Structures are given as C-alpha cells and as structure tokens.
C-alpha cells in the first residue's frame, strides 16, 4: 500500500484495494481488489443484487466505502472534499435511468457542468456540447427537453452530458437495461465508438455481444465479491467457475 502512494503509476487509472462496504449490518462488498489501466475497457456482470452498482458508485463517492483504499488517477478517495471534487471532475457516469435534468433543454443539460465546474464561457461550452451531441448522433435535438425524447435518445444525451466534462474515466451502470430492445443498439454503438477513441471504461452490463466486442476483461461478481476476472473469450467459453457458468446459462438461454 505504501508503494502505491509513493510512486503513483501514471498508467493506472483506478486502483481498488481491499475495499469493503456495508449497508448497516449488510456486507454489500467484500474485499474488492481491482486495478484498471488507462484505456482499458472493463465489463462487470453478475446476478442482480451482487453489488455491481454499489462497486462502481463507490468510485465517484455516490456511495462511501467503509474500509480499504480507492485511488482514482493518483488521487486517494477519502473524506477530503477537495479530492472528491477532483475525482468527480475526471470521472463521468451514465445511469440506468438516464437521470437527465428534466427542466433543462438537452443543450442546457450538456453545458451546465462545464460552465459551473470547469468555468468555461457559455459559447465555448455550447460549441463543445454540440460536438459531443454530434458524436452521439443527435445534434438536431439540442433545443428539445428530455421528456420529448425516446429512451435511447435520452441515454445518448446522458452520455454526451458526461463527455462534456471531458472525463478520463467513464462509468456505465446498466445503460441499456431500461431501454426498449430496438433502442439498445443505438446506445451500444455510441459506446463502441467511445471505446475505439481510447476512453477508459467500466461498464456494468449484460450485453454479451458488447462485452465480446469491446471488453479487455470481464469481471464477474456474486454476493458482493469478485468471483472471476478473465478476457471475454475465456470468460464466455471456458470458465471453470461453477457460479459463472450457471449465470451465463441463465442470461444466454432466456
């Protein structure tokens, strides 16, 4: 642990060591160890309630971990508010239910944080927002409100909103689970493009096609623990872990 603080490796985006998380008496995360290098794409999967959301929400302090260490881009996540702010500026997050601000237009959603947090002038923030809206392929919706868009469009706006902060790491918590089937691919396509650009990504998802295409590693969680960590091909075809195989047979045969 001492070595970690003394010589931060610039290639490491995220390091979690011996992290535990409790909700009251409930032990939600057990001894999580995870290292993610820059540019790596991690897919996290596992049964419902296994702690996937809780784990990635600890990375930007939406949940507070109880023990162990989390170091994001060389900054340790602790009670220091300055550290938390610094990490949140560099880590973008996309949620299952989009969580757009319904009282703001798409453009306002995108420029809010760059203007308030990065102190960009409005014009510059808007230019950048339009660039990212083009990247997620909906620049024509900029003046609409979230409630006027389809789920897939809303999720792409949410991705653009996160990208407007120009984060170094992106977290995705089941970004396609709330979408109608015909909208899933439009969101996954955007995520594939993002991966091709070299973004460091940690995605909780059960989209196995996406995992095969994009992931460097797949992490399988169950009951608050990381059970298995493997490259996608090995994970899907040659896992020797009983619980993994059971989970895979469930999601592949439904």
């Amino acid at each position, binding site marked *: 642990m001492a070595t970690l603080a003394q010589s931060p490796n610039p290639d490491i985006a995220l390091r979690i060591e011996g992290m535990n998380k409790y909700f009251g008496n409930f032990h939600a995360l057990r001894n999580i160890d995870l290292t993610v290098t820059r540019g790596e794409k991690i897919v996290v999967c596992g049964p419902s309630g296994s702690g996937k959301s809780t784990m990635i929400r600890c990375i930007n302090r*939406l949940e507070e971990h109880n023990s162990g260490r989390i170091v994001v881009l060389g900054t340790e996540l602790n009670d220091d508010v300055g550290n938390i702010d610094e990490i949140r500026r560099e880590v973008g997050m996309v949620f299952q239910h989009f969580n757009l*601000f319904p*009282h703001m237009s798409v453009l306002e959603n995108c420029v809010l*944080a760059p203007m*308030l*947090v990065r102190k960009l002038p409005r014009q510059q923030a808007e230019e950048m927002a339009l660039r990212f809206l083009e990247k997620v392929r909906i620049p024509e919706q900029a003046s609409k409100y979230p*409630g006027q868009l389809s789920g897939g469009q809303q999720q792409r706006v949410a991705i653009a909103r*996160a990208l407007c*902060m120009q984060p170094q790491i992106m977290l995705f918590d089941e970004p396609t689970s709330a979408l109608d089937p015909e909208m899933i691919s439009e969101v996954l396509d955007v995520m594939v493009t993002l991966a091709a650009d070299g973004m460091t990504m940690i995605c909780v998802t059960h989209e196995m096609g996406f995992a095969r295409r994009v992931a460097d590693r797949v992490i399988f969680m169950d009951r608050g623990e990381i059970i298995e960590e493997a490259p996608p091909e090995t994970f899907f075809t040659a896992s020797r872990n009983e619980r993994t195989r059971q989970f895979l047979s469930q999601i592949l045969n439904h």
Partner: protein
Amino acid sequence: MGSLLRNQKARNALLQAVFVGALGSLVIAGALIAQQNMAAQGITSGFDFLFKPTGWEVTFSLLPAKPTDPYWWYFLIGIINTLFLGAFGLVTATIVGTVVGLARTSSNDLARLLGRSYVDVFRNIPLILQVFFWNALITHLPPPREAHEAWGFALTSRGLYVPILNVHGLAFAGAMVALLAAIVLPIWLGRTARLGSPPEQRRPLQLAAAILALACAVLILFLGRLPDTALMNVPALRGLNLQGGLRVPPEFTALVVAIAIYGGSYIAEIVRGGFKAVGRGQVEAANSLGLTPWQVFSRVRLPLALRAMLPILANQYVWLMKATTLGIAVGFADFFMIVALTINHSGQTLEAIGILMAGFLIINLSLAALFNRINKAIALKGNQLRG
C-alpha cells in the same frame, strides 16, 4: 337522439347545460324569496346605499377616510386592507415555511427534530387561538413610555413603532413600484423571445434596466420628500407617548405573526414534500458531474422542488387569504369586518354579503390564475413517466 346520447361530447355538453340550468334557477328562486322577505321588513333592497355616507370611523386605512365617505369607498378600503394583510401574511408565512421545511429535509438530526416539533405544535393549534394569543401578548407589553427601543423600532402595548422615510405616501408607493420593476424587468428581459438577440447577450441590457429603475426609485423618493424634515422619521418619546415613525397597530401585528407562524407550518410541509419529490437520480447525476452542494441545490433540487410544490402552494395561499377574515376577531378593519359593520349600520345584509363574496372570489380567482400561469410557464416539457 339515442346515438346523440351515446356521443361523448354531446353527453358532456348536455350534462353541463342541465347543471347550469339547475344552478341558475336556484339563484333566481333565492333572490326572489329574499326580496319578498326584505320588503316585508321594510328594507329597500338594491345597491343605492353604496353611495350614502357611512357615518362611522374606520380604525385602519391606507387611504384617507372620514365618516362622510360613501360605503363604496369603505369597501375599497376594506379590500385594500385585506390585500395588505394578505400580502404580509403570505410573504412571511412563505419565509417561515421555507426555513422550517428545509430544516425538515436537512441531514442534521437536531434541525430535523426542531422542524418537526415546530410543525407538530403550530399546525395543531387553531389559527384563531394563535391570533388571540399574539394579540393578548402585544397588548400586555409595557406602554410606550416604558418601551424598549432598538434601532428606532419599539414594541409597545399600542403596537409596533417603526421608523419611516419622510416622504409623501404616493411617492413611497411609486418608489416601491420602481423597486419592483428593478427586479422584474431584468427577469423579463432575460426570458422574452420578443428581442431578437440570444438571452445570454442581454446582460448589459438587463443591468441598464435595473440601474434605470433603481435611479427612478431614488428620484421619486427625492421629489416626494416632505419639505423641512429630516430624511428619516424615527419614533421618539414625547411626554407619555411615542411620536413620529409609523405605528403598526397591535391587531395587525398579531394577525401577521399568527398567519406567518400557522401558515408557515403548513408551507413547511409543502416545501418538504416538494424536495422529497425530486428524483434521487437527478441529484446523483448532478453530484457525479462535480457540482458543489450549493450548485446541486440551486440548479437541480430547488427548481424541481418548486415545480412539484407550486400547485399545492397556490391552494395554501388561497386558504390563507381567506383566513385574513379573522381580522374581525381582534378588530382589524379587513374587508370582512367592514362588511359586518356595514350590515350593522345599514341593514343591507344580502347586498353586503354578496359584495364580500364577490370580492373574495375575485381576489382568490386572480391568485389562482396567476399561479396557473406560472405553473404553465415552468411546467416540465414532454412525457415525464419515462424517467
């Protein structure tokens, strides 16, 4: 005919026609009966009395009033008094309610406990008791010659004394309007689409409008200064009484305090409900973008909470407006009390009550219409069910 009855629109229209017809016949029947009764008692019905002098004094008036003034002038005074009391009551109740409501949603245990106790206590004591309590408390304060004075304010058994500017009443009202314009104009300029330029480039225009309105206010005050007096008129003890300043009568102070505290306890619950209705997801998204707690509050939580609470708040305001009629319990000359005195002195019961009801209807419908407009203007666009 049968098919017409099955048509949804035709059926609705028919139902409404029947309802309006029934209501109309009820009103006409009532009026006819009343007219007969009054004729039997020797009272001439009609609204001629409005133009006769009242012959009695009114205890509180923002307009000049003397017993030779006609009834319609007194009614106007009553409506203005009601609006005046209502305005003070609603604004102070909103301030109290916001503070207590925010305390109830805070993460601090003590603040939550205090907020909760406040609501539990003051919501469960009838408003009229609270009015009596504050009125009794104020009238039992020391008399003016023993009053404690601080910064020119003095609270005495004869009411609250406050310092005022030595300016003409009209000039003061004009200055208030100008001050209001200094706030409203920049907001309007920032929102209206009538100007061609994008809203962000209107900053200089907004600033100029605000400064101009402020300058107008100062100019009006300066022009309206009473000659040969100091700028401030501060109450001071002369003999047994306080002279100068403005005396706010005890009953008005008691009413405002009671409405602020009682109304505040209800508004606190509305505020709390509004903040509870804000989705956790939106707050988490704002946090994850790195916004500070204040930015999350002012840009996300407050605007969304306001939208959730405005419709209920409008109801509460209408309710509190009606509660100002408690003025009669402590002798404040609100609209209701003036109507009651009119009935005593003129015997024109039905006409006076009709005017009272029409007046409150107009006040409260205007209030409701104003809130409806605000609601529509800030309503969330599109379908909200999708999240």
